């Protein structure tokens, strides 16, 4: 499992780092197919821990790192179900993606998200589960969930609160606006900004530096510095499911599904 070529993502060990590449067109939407392969990756991560010093997650899609949850798939799967069954299905999906992101968050390896283009919603939440974010100068970060009558559901709020000040959390969440990499650097959200097309190279340079350190020490430092807000993560699932049951959410998803708007990704 040190190498995998999947339908939505692939991974390999390269220069002592486990590299996960997302490649699910058009914009690495996270639906059941990608979730299943992310679960496989987490199992591979546990196996690779003794052979690697770092993990790098990046995207091969030109559009960006990830546009987030696959809302079209969510709508199509939810449509024929009763509200109670819709909520049960969403809760099951959220429990699974939380298990993936919690495992990534807690990995003893140092994890780096090398991001470009859209880093929206669930894609943003995947990046936030990593220890470091290296951003291409053209990257944009956004939580557009309120547009649909929802809150981020993949652990975004607790992890963003852990990393940056509450004011920028409120700004991103309550306005749904996107910010560029320079702004994200200024808030402390990202650790480095790369020239266009250079984020992966910078992430690899950071991984090479990290690999020089004693693994036990790095893992202990990470555990000390980066507590996982498990209770808030549980609460977030409950808040999401409470909101999801309302008709306004299915109406928002329907509009997204049927939209020919030129701004489907914009709040």
């Amino acid at each position, binding site marked *: 499992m040190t190498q995998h070529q999947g339908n939505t993502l692939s991974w390999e060990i390269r220069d002592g780092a486990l590299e996960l590449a997302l490649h699910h067109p058009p*914009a690495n939407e996270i639906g059941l197919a990608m979730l299943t392969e992310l679960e496989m990756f987490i199992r591979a991560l546990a196996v690779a821990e003794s052979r690697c010093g770092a993990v790098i997650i990046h995207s091969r899609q030109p559009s*960006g790192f990830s546009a987030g949850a696959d809302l079209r798939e969510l709508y199509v799967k939810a449509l024929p179900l009763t509200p109670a069954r819709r909520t049960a299905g969403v809760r099951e999906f959220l429990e699974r993606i939380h298990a993936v992101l919690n495992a990534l968050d807690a990995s003893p390896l140092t994890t780096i998200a090398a991001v470009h283009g*859209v880093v929206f919603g669930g894609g943003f939440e995947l990046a936030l589960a990593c220890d470091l974010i290296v951003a291409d100068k053209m990257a944009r970060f*956004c939580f557009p969930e309120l547009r649909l009558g929802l809150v981020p559901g993949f652990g975004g709020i607790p992890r963003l609160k852990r990393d940056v000040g509450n004011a920028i959390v409120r700004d991103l969440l309550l306005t749904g*606006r*996107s910010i*560029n990499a320079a702004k994200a650097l200024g808030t402390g959200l990202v650790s480095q900004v790369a020239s266009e097309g250079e984020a992966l190279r910078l992430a690899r340079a950071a991984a090479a530096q990290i690999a020089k350190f004693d693994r036990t020490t790095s893992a202990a430092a990470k555990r000390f510095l980066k507590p996982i807000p498990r209770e808030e993560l549980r609460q977030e699932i409950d808040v999401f499911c409470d909101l999801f049951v309302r008709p306004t959410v299915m109406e928002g998803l329907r509009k997204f599904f049927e939209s020919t708007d*030129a*701004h489907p990704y*914009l709040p």
Partner: protein
Amino acid sequence: MKTLEQTTEEILALAALHFKVPREQLSPADDFYRTLKIDSLQALELLTRLEHHFGIELPDYEVQGVADFRTLATRIQARL
């Protein structure tokens, strides 16, 4: 302080350069989605390039519904 005309001209020049459209084919009243043949994600790219060029933040909601270069220039001008 730039004039609105200067800001508009810089937007047109930047759009022409990055989306490989001859500058002379662009005018302030053009619908930039149609003229540049860009989709929503490329519009985000344009927004980011404009933020970098002018050294400003331009929240998405201020440009939502804006499609012509002249109106875009007024939104940017308000933040210079």
